[in-house]
């Protein structure tokens, strides 16, 4: 991590005053109850994003927005809530590293190219955070010899998803897919997920079919997963169809 970036843009968490990091935002179809950024901030982000490569001021403002006081605290909250297996002493570093990835200029350029005016700063941050946590999971698995399949593994591999669970009643598949499409809000991301689920193709093959680089597919896939996992309509549909019985385990 570059010290000058950490010092300049990421405040020491212990010194930061406590505040509410979340405000409701009603922009996307799959609305989340609480969100990190206000509607104005999201609009500002989208206005600045196309200029980050050629305009130093625009890039600076995007970095400041993504590293605002409330952001690291909100991301830490997400880690505590969704990945309670991660030791408290590691959370700050994970969040800091995720922020460093999030403000990478090339990454921001890719975000604009892939999502244009629908680019969401919170989804972006969550994707980067998820990437850091996936690194941690992989590292843990190596050390403990665990075999739990992760989303990363599933994307890379071909074949069926390993799951012993079978529905008791037929699923309203078309309804589900309609909701998935709406939550993703992006035809390409929908195609990636469709190829993965229905055609069981490995990530590399998906990339070839869609004429994309494997990295691009991976990034889009993770961005899409962050949208889906936080999409109220999708979660509700899963609950109503009894797909979440027995709760979810942490991802360690």
């Amino acid at each position, binding site marked *: 991590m570059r010290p000058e970036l950490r010092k300049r843009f990421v405040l020491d968490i212990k010194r930061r005053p406590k505040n509410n990091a979340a405000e409701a935002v009603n922009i996307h179809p799959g609305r989340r109850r609480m969100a990190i950024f206000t509607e104005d901030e999201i609009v500002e982000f989208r206005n600045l994003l196309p200029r980050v490569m050629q305009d130093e001021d625009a890039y600076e403002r995007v970095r400041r927005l993504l590293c605002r006081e409330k952001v690291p605290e909100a991301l830490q909250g997400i880690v505590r809530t969704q990945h309670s297996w991660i030791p408290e002493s590691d959370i700050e570093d994970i969040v800091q590293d995720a922020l460093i990835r999030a403000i990478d200029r090339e990454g921001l350029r890719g975000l604009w190219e892939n999502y244009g005016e629908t680019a969401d700063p919170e989804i972006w941050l969550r994707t980067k955070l998820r990437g850091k946590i996936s690194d941690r999971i992989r590292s843990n698995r190596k050390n403990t010899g665990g075999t739990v399949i992760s*989303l990363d593994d599933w994307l890379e591999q071909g074949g069926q998803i390993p799951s012993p669970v079978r*529905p008791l009643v037929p699923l309203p598949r078309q309804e589900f897919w309609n909701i*998935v499409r709406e939550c993703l809000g992006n*035809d390409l991301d929908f195609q990636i997920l469709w190829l993965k689920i*229905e055609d069981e193709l490995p990530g590399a093959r998906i990339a070839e079919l*869609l004429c994309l680089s494997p990295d691009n597919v991976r990034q889009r896939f993770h961005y899409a997963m962050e949208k889906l996992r936080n999409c109220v309509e999708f979660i509700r549909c899963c609950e109503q169809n009894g*797909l979440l019985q027995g709760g979810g385990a942490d991802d360690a």
Partner: protein
Amino acid sequence: MTREFLTDEELLRVFALLRTPREPVRTGLEAAPPEGALPNSWDVPELDLTIRLEEAASGVRIRLTGGADWRGALVHCYWNWQREGEAPESLTAFVLMPERDFAGRYIREAYIPERVTFRPAVVIVPRYADPEVFLSQWQRASVKPGKEELRRWIEANLQNFAPRHRQRWEQIRDEAV
């Protein structure tokens, strides 16, 4: 009260259940019935698409019938199979959908030089496509539109391609591989 988020495990579980039940791994060009029979047809409402395979000479004719999203789309089709004891094989085809509809549907047929009887993976080549990756796939494909059709498709979509790729798309258009 609806939960706030889904874990990876829950997402994987839901995806496993979303998948349409079908025959397991295809072990031959001609899969076990009913997929082995021709003609064969799949209605995919999630994609607003119907795929039909009919016998034709020593191969098959594929007919794609799609809704509005498929208008003018360059479609990439992929079949893969593996005979027992042999290496996996695959075949890809590019099919350019028409600009004009017939009763609200966009229909295109193409001849596939293998007797594939099972449903292919089908995608619309996106505007985010990397021209180098596209070129590599185009050159590999067993079936594809003519050079003039490719030129017209690139021209029609040029302004939609990512700005950093546009010049390369123009080159491909002009060289008409």
